[in-house]
């Protein structure tokens, strides 16, 4: 039973072979980085890098890397290196390598040798078949290293030879001359080879077998997670970097530098000047303005969110209470569930169309703030229902039973036990939902869109706008029925207006980036608050 086939319980981690595999992973990482740097033109393919021409350096590294990986496989095969290989490299690897070799063979045959379909298809099939056979037949060590290493070596040789220059272009013969350029393909191939050989080297590092597969998979998964986080940070950082100059242009601090504000109290007007002037968020766009800003859009977004929340939150929370506390599970709740999930996944532009067809004729036949509020409210509603329901279902039944056992009516139980316990969840859900709708453009595009450059005088003043009229509907608020701007729409309008139409603002590009930054800041602050709230309440739940 326990005999020679048993592997050792303790692995020593410091053999030369393991070190070689680790170095190979390191080279793959370097290639990966160089590939991306070349793709985004941080390093020039035609230039030099540490004294060598870039292309030569990439080619040489690829050859070394491929060679190292293949050598490791051979070493394992001939028992120079102690490993645990399986009979084959696995189905996924087989399919991937077969595809890579099929495509590679096809491209070489058709582009390099200029063969037609009759020529390149058999060639591609042949190379694909060889790739598959090498992956599957000789055992896992050869199977996972040789096909990957060979690809890297061949690519490296192509880079080193004069077959491909840094300026080569392959026309695809498609509409309007889209073509693949060497300046794109070389980085892509480098990154691809780095991934393949890096994976193979990680497998070798783990000694193949179950452990090796884990190492290979983990390498890719960690890379993926890292890439996602990197993309996120670069998006935010890039917007910040581009937007900050415009955002803070003309900021001044000191007594009396800010815009005049008037507070009316018991008929007495009391005017004062804010001690801070921040033109971008305090001004509109005007010919006489020294610095232009997006105040109307900020105010518009504020009122949109307020309106949507006032509409959707009571409705959504009420529906959630009814579904969890009153309705018995059956056909009706199922229908509501399907309806809310359907509403939740409905594209935002469809909400816009709906608002356009349903709300606009009913509110003064023109785009208006009120229509925008309600359209966003419709979008927010399903999210409120779903999150509130989850929060209420998470309230333990013991709470309800304990309250009911005291002879309290159902509604009182809900009001004094269920709702307070579910409140954190509901609040978090609402905040995150608000973050989502505050950044939505498509629905308000069709229901309330204002102008491109909005003068400060068009800032919505909802509270001051209510009036009573003699004719129905007796109460009116022209501010609600007027089109106004909002941040996401403003950004869209700035993009579509193009650079030519933006004579009003001094530096249109700066203005656009600053608008994007303000929008991002508004939306992300909702998310940050939502996430922190949830974190806080979870901790409190866990430790109480």
């Amino acid at each position, binding site marked *: 039973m326990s005999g020679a086939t048993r592997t050792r319980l303790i692995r020593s981690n410091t053999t030369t072979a393991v070190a070689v595999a680790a170095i190979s992973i390191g080279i793959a990482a370097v290639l990966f980085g160089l590939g991306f740097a070349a793709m985004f033109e941080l390093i020039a393919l035609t230039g030099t890098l540490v004294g060598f021409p870039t292309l030569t350096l990439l080619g040489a590294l690829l050859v070394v890397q491929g060679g190292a990986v293949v050598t490791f496989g051979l070493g394992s095969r001939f028992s120079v290196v102690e490993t645990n290989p399986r009979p084959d490299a696995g189905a996924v690897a087989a399919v991937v390598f077969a595809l890579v070799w099929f495509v590679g063979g096809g491209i070489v045959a058709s582009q390099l040798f200029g063969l037609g379909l009759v020529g390149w298809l058999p060639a591609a099939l042949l190379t694909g078949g060889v790739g598959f056979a090498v992956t599957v037949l000789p055992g896992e060590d050869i199977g996972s290293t040789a096909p990957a290493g060979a690809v890297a070596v061949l690519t490296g040789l192509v880079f080193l030879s004069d077959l491909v220059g840094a300026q080569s272009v392959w026309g695809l013969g498609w509409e309007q001359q889209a073509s693949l350029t060497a300046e794109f393909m070389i980085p892509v191939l480098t990154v691809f080879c780095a991934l393949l050989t890096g994976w193979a080297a990680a497998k070798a590092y783990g000694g193949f077998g179950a452990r090796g597969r884990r190492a290979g998979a983990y390498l890719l998964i960690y890379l993926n997670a890292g890439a996602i986080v990197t993309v996120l940070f670069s998006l935010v950082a890039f*917007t910040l970097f581009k937007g900050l100059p415009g955002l803070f242009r003309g900021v001044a601090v000191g007594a009396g530098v800010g815009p005049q504000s008037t507070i009316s109290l018991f008929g007495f007007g009391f005017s004062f000047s804010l001690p801070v002037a921040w033109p971008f968020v305090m001004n509109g766009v005007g010919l006489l303005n020294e610095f232009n800003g997006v105040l109307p859009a900020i105010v518009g977004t504020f009122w949109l969110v307020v309106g949507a929340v006032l509409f959707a939150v009571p409705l959504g929370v009420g529906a959630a209470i009814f579904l969890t506390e009153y309705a018995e599970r059956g056909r009706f709740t199922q229908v509501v569930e399907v309806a809310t999930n359907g509403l939740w996944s409905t594209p935002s*532009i469809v909400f816009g169309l709906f608002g356009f067809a349903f709300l606009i004729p009913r509110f003064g036949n023109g785009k208006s703030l009120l229509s925008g509020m309600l359209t966003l409210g419709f979008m927010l509603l399903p999210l409120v229902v779903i999150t509130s329901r989850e929060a209420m279902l998470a309230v333990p039944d013991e709470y309800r039973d304990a309250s009911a056992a005291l002879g309290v009516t159902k509604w009182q139980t809900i009001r004094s036990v269920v709702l307070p316990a579910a409140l954190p969840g509901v609040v978090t859900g609402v905040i995150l939902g608000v973050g989502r709708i505050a950044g939505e453009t498509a629905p308000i595009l069709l229901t309330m869109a204002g102008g491109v450059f909005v003068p400060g005088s068009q800032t919505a003043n909802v509270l001051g706008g209510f009036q009573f009229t003699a004719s129905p509907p007796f109460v009116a608020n022209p501010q609600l029925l007027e089109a106004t701007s909002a941040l*996401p729409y403003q950004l869209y309008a700035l993009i579509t207006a193009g650079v030519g139409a933006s004579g009003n603002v001094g530096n249109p590009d700066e203005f656009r980036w600053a608008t994007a930054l303000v929008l991002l800041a508004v939306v992300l602050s909702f998310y940050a608050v939502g996430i922190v709230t949830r974190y806080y309440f979870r901790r409190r739940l866990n430790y109480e």
Partner: protein
Amino acid sequence: MAQAAETETGAETLARHVRRFREFLATTDREALAVVGVMSLALLSAFVGFLLVSAYTIVPFAVFLGAAGYGWIRYQGLTARLLMLTMTVSTIVILLLIITFIFYESVPVLVYESTTVLGVSVPGLRMFTQPNWDAVSSPIRYSMVPMIHGTVMVTVIATVVAAPLGIAAALFLSEIAPAPVREFVKPGVEILAGIPSIVYGFIGFTVLSPWASDQFRILGQGTYLFVGVVVGLMALPTIVSVAEDALNTVPESMKSGSLAVGTTDWQTMTSITLPAAFSGVSAAVLLGVGRAIGETMAATVMLRGVPRITDPLYNVFYGQETLTSLIARNYGEADGLQMDALFVAGVILFVTVLVISIGSQYIEWRMRKKFGGDV
């Protein structure tokens, strides 16, 4: 209860409801009944008035508010219950209103684009059988084919990008990441979901598109390839968070069982955790696909806005128009039939995404049934 509801016939259900309603009438006092009646009637007439675009809508609505206020003071439990029922019903009503209005608005163009097949006139068929969209010169044609092609291209590319990366990231978050890393990456992914699509579109428009047209020597800007990548990036957080939830529902005992027979955690993930969470993970991908189909702003600002099919069909280096961007770009100058044609695009989007949503719910429901509610 759900079991009982499934087994009893419609007539029995009806009888049960009638009985319960009678009981309710008998046990509730007169005044409460009157309040409830007034509230229901007022709300109903306010709704009808609103639908008919009546200026007097406010009257029954005021009555409703008054009755609700009175009821809240006198019979809080009953009033609350009625209000909540109303709110629940209103979610369904909103969905129904959306369906009604976007279908209703699209009728004229469907009639205009009728084609006769085997002697039967099929409304709207021509929008799908010929590929020309021309709203200006005669013959005026509103074909949906180029936009469907664009939406399919963008969605396929986005899914190819987002599905594998999303599932891998979900595995990372739920199974692999050490606790401190998870606490850092998870909110990061959520924030990624929060970045407004117009910001993605803006960055794509100002950075990615010029770069792409330089790299591929394209005339002009806008490629399905990079719109797809950007949309995929936007669908990614949806896939990650839903798939992660699904992976977290796989019981720890099952994973421990696998680890205890001496498998690596990677083998446990691929052979036990992923198959057990398959329904949730596929629902996550479906939801991501739905997001990608409905994504509007990035496509609108990054595409060319020419309703034409690319040549060849798989030419990803050109980006013409998707269903969503068609609506966002043309709503302004459109009226009459062209506006109605935009509603047809909306109907296609709505129906596709609704089918996907219901499909993913069905998959989850089936799997939950199979695993007896555990997984």
